[in-house]
């Protein structure tokens, strides 16, 4: 592991100033991604700025029933916060189905949003990888790509975004609040995640020294009956092959409003807007759900080992919407 300098800061202002002033520096929150990637030699900060003392750990009410989740709130605490479990059960469930309890106790919400991909070619430090070393190529295109994305891919990168909770946050139009050298801003989560395109090394619009301070969840009555399903190679402590966050509002057998987002299949947490458009106004039936799934997956680009994800995602969407129409429960 490369040598590191270390500083512990106590305010947001000090954190932003310290990282902004040192080009080779990075924030350190839970460290579950950062320390791992430093040890692997993938991340190479010369200075870690420890932000764990910043007062950003709360979960607070927003006017109208929304929530403000502090960027340093830990996954395990947010998952069991009554406001989150009660108003956004899909968010709570997504958190609980991610990682292990030890990691959830460490990992912050802001850090979760910034976690790097699990692509083996990115992590091995050796293979050509446009995300790690732009211009070297993508080893996953014709490599072992069973876990890779089928939506939002490019010829330069097909790595799947690994976060569960970001999928649920995408379903409910979360907004990422930041403070940076240029001041504060609010970034809708769909804009926070960038498609790989021809710049896969750039995953979000954060400037150097810009710190996530909180995540806003806007009021959403529909979220009270949201569900999160996760399908993976083992029952626990594994990344998703496909995951679904869904919420439906059904009146007189007709879908009045739908929220649907997918994990495990996209290069970013995938808000399924094509499917939502198909669902709105359609009968709340398995046929409608299948048609919505087909609409979303029509744009899927599969590779040698991940074609199964299209059918798996189709079934997961239908099951997720069916459960959501029944009023959630899990």
């Amino acid at each position, binding site marked *: *592991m*490369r*040598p*590191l*300098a*270390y*500083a*512990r*800061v*106590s*305010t*947001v*202002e*000090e954190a932003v*100033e*310290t990282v902004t002033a040192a080009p080779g520096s990075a924030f*350190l929150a839970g*460290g*579950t991604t950062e*320390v*791992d990637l*430093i*040890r*692997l030699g993938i991340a190479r900060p*010369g*200075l*870690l700025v*420890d932000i*764990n003392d910043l*007062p*950003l*750990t*709360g979960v*607070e009410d927003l006017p109208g029933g929304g929530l*403000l989740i*502090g960027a340093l709130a830990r996954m*395990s605490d947010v998952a069991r916060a009554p406001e989150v479990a009660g108003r956004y059960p899909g968010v709570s469930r997504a958190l609980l189905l991610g*990682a*292990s*309890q*030890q*990691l959830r*106790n*460490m990992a912050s919400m802001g850090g979760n949003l910034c976690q790097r991909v699990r692509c083996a070619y990115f992590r091995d430090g050796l293979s050509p990888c446009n995300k790690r070393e732009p211009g070297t190529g993508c080893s996953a295109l014709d490599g072992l790509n069973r876990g890779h994305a089928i939506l939002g891919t490019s010829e330069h990168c097909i790595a799947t975004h690994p976060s569960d909770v970001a999928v649920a946050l995408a379903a409910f139009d979360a907004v990422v609040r930041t*403070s940076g050298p240029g001041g*504060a801003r609010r970034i809708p989560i769909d804009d926070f995640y960038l498609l790989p395109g021809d710049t896969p090394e750039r995953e979000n619009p954060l400037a150097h020294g810009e710190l996530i*301070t*909180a995540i806003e969840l806007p009021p959403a009555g529909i979220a009270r009956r949201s569900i999160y399903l996760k399908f993976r190679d083992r*029952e*626990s*402590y594994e990344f998703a092959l496909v995951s679904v966050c869904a919420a439906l509002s059904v009146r007189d057998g007709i879908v009045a409003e739908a929220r649907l987002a997918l994990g495990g299949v996209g290069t970013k947490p995938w808000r399924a807007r094509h499917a939502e458009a198909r669902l709105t106004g359609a009968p709340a039936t398995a046929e409608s759900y299948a048609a919505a799934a087909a609409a979303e997956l029509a744009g899927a680009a599969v590779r040698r080992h991940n074609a199964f994800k299209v059918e798996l995602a189709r079934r997961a969407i239908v099951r997720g919407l069916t459960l959501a129409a029944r009023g959630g429960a899990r």
Partner: protein
Amino acid sequence: MGIDLSAEAAPRRRTTVRGPSDEPVVLTVNGTEHAVNLEPRVSLLDALRDRLALTGSKKGCDQGTCGACTVWVDGRRVLACLTLAITCEGRQVTTIEGLTTDGELHPMQRAFIEHDAFQCGYCTPGQIMSAVALIEEGNAGTDQDIAEFMSGNLCRCAAYPGIRAAIRDVRDARAPEPGATGDGG
């Protein structure tokens, strides 16, 4: 708690940058303060094992996958391999060596022995630190909960049935008698 963006929350101070060479660091482990010199890159796991000779916490994967290094920081179970030691200044670290009281094994340690909840024993300290925390968290209600909330501790010998039995025993020994009332508060 809360979310406070104001700079007034703490008086502005000059940020101290430490390292990358050795820095004096005070670690509080099992209630005892230890003054050590270490580089900021040293993990809590390496500091415990190599500097403080507390070798109960085990290094399995060193990448946050296996759970053998599970310890508590400020009472919460975390992975010592992904924690930098220097970040633990001012925090309370508890390791498997801190579970015994006056030489008496913790009930979870006794239960692991009674249920033969290990073969090689390498994952056991991490399993036990996780298991005690699991019950404190209130996540040991059902076998399904136990399996889910212990999934971060891998056992290559597959002693899982014994581990779950040990956890059930300790959980049930702590539970109030059936029909018992609460504290009235």
